[in-house]
C-alpha cells in the first residue's frame, strides 16, 4: 500500500469489545488517490490534510503514521 492523505479522522474512546484494551486509539480514512481505506494510526495524532505513510498490515487492518519531513528522516 502506498502513502496517502488523511481525509478524516477520529480518536475512539468508547471501543467495541475487540478493541477495548487499545482505547483511546486513532483511526483515519486515508485517501490513496484511486481509493480510500479506513486505517489505524500509529504514534503521533494526525489531522485532516496530513500526509501519512503506510507502515504495515496486521490482521487485515492497514496501519499508517504521520509522514516525516525529509529533514526528519534518519
Amino acid at each position, binding site marked *: 500500500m502506498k502513502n496517502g492523505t488523511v481525509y478524516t479522522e477520529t*480518536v475512539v474512546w468508547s471501543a467495541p469489545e475487540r478493541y477495548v484494551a487499545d482505547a483511546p486509539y486513532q*483511526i483515519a480514512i486515508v485517501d490513496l488517490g484511486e481509493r*480510500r481505506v*479506513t486505517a489505524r494510526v500509529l504514534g503521533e495524532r494526525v489531522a*485532516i490534510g496530513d500526509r501519512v505513510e503506510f507502515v504495515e498490515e496486521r490482521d487485515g487492518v492497514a496501519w499508517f503514521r504521520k509522514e516525516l519531513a525529509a529533514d526528519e528522516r534518519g
Partner: protein
Amino acid sequence: MRRVAVVGIGKTAFGAFPDRDLRSLAVEAGQKALADAHLRPDQVEAFYLGNFAGPSFVGQNHLAPYVAGAMGITGVPATRFEAACASSGAAFFHAWSAVAAGIYDVVVVAGVEKMTSQSTPRVAEILAGAGDMSGEMRAGATFPALFAMIARRHMYQFGTTREQLAAVAVKNHANGAKNPLAHMKKVITVEQALAGKPVAEPLTVYDCSLVSDGAAAVVICAAERAAEFTGKPVRVLGVSQTSDRVAMDEKGDITTLQAVRSSAEKAYRMAGVSAAEIQFAEVHDCFTIAEILSYEDLGFVKKGEGGPYAQSGATCVHGERPVNASGGLKAKGHPVGATGVGQICDVVLQIRGEAGELQVVRRELGLAQNLGGSGATSVVTVLGAM
C-alpha cells in the same frame, strides 16, 4: 396506486426496562395501535416487523410471527425487515407499497429493539454489524466513530463548530424532558454538552443517542376505508426508501448523505410538496451531526448551513420549523428497530394535535426521516392531515 392512511398508532415508553422482554414490548405497542384503530387482530391482513438485531441482543429469531402470534394475529404473512437503524422505516415502506398496490387493505407495522441487557462494548460490537465488518469496523471504527469522522470533515469543509452540535443536544434534551415516553428527561446546557465524556472525538456522550428498549406500531389502511377505523386519519402523502454504499470509505463526499437526498426528493415529488413547505419533522439524530446533515440533505437549508441553522433556534418547538419536538433519538431514546415507526407515530400525534406540551403550531404537513447505518438506507415519509 391507492391512497394510504395511518389510522392507529401505539408506542411503549423508551428506556431501560430490565423486567421487560422484546416480545412484551412489541405486543404492548401493537395492541395500543390496534386499540387506537378500533381494530380486531383477525382484521389484520399482514404484519410487518422492523428489528435490527434481536438474534444478537436477545437470541431470538423468527420474530415477526413470534410477536404477531402473541397479539392474536395468525394465518397471514408476518415478516421481519432488517435495515440497520432504518429497519422499521423499511418495514413501513414495504407495508405501504403493498397497501398502495391493492394487495392488502389493512396491515400492522411494528418496530422493536431490546438493547439494554448487553454491556456497552457488546452493544457497540453488535451495532457495528450495520457497517462494513471486513473494512471500517475491522479497523476499529464504531458508529460514533463513523459519525465523528463525518463531523470532523463537516467542520473542516464548512466551519461547523462543537457549539453548533451542542445546540442540537440542548434542544432535543429540552424537548425530551417534556415527553412522557422519553428515555431521558434531563435538561442540559451547552457547557455540559461540551464537557461531556469523549466517545469518539469530537463527539461526547451528549452528541450520541441513547441505547434503549422500546417498541412502536402503526395501523395503515387503504385511505378509502379509513373512516371505518378512526375519525382522525392521517394521509401518507409521499414515502421513499433509497440506498447507498455501506462502507463510508467507499462513498464520495461523506458530508452529504446521498440516500437522504434521493429519498427526500422522491417523497416530495410523490407528495407534490417542496422542502420549504414541510412545517415540522422528526429526523434521525443518532448523533448531533446527523441532525445537522438532515437539515441540509432534506433541503431545509443549503449544504454547509446546518450548523448555524441549529444554533438559530429555528428548529425549536416554537421555531419556524420544529425538528424533533419529541426529543429525537438523542433524548427520547433509540431502540434502533423501533425508531422509524416511532417517528411516524410522533408525526401523526402532532398532525392530530395530540402532542400536549410539545405540540407544534403549524401541524398540517410533517416529515419523518429514518436512517440506517452511516447512510446506506434512508426512508423519508411525508404525512399530512386528510
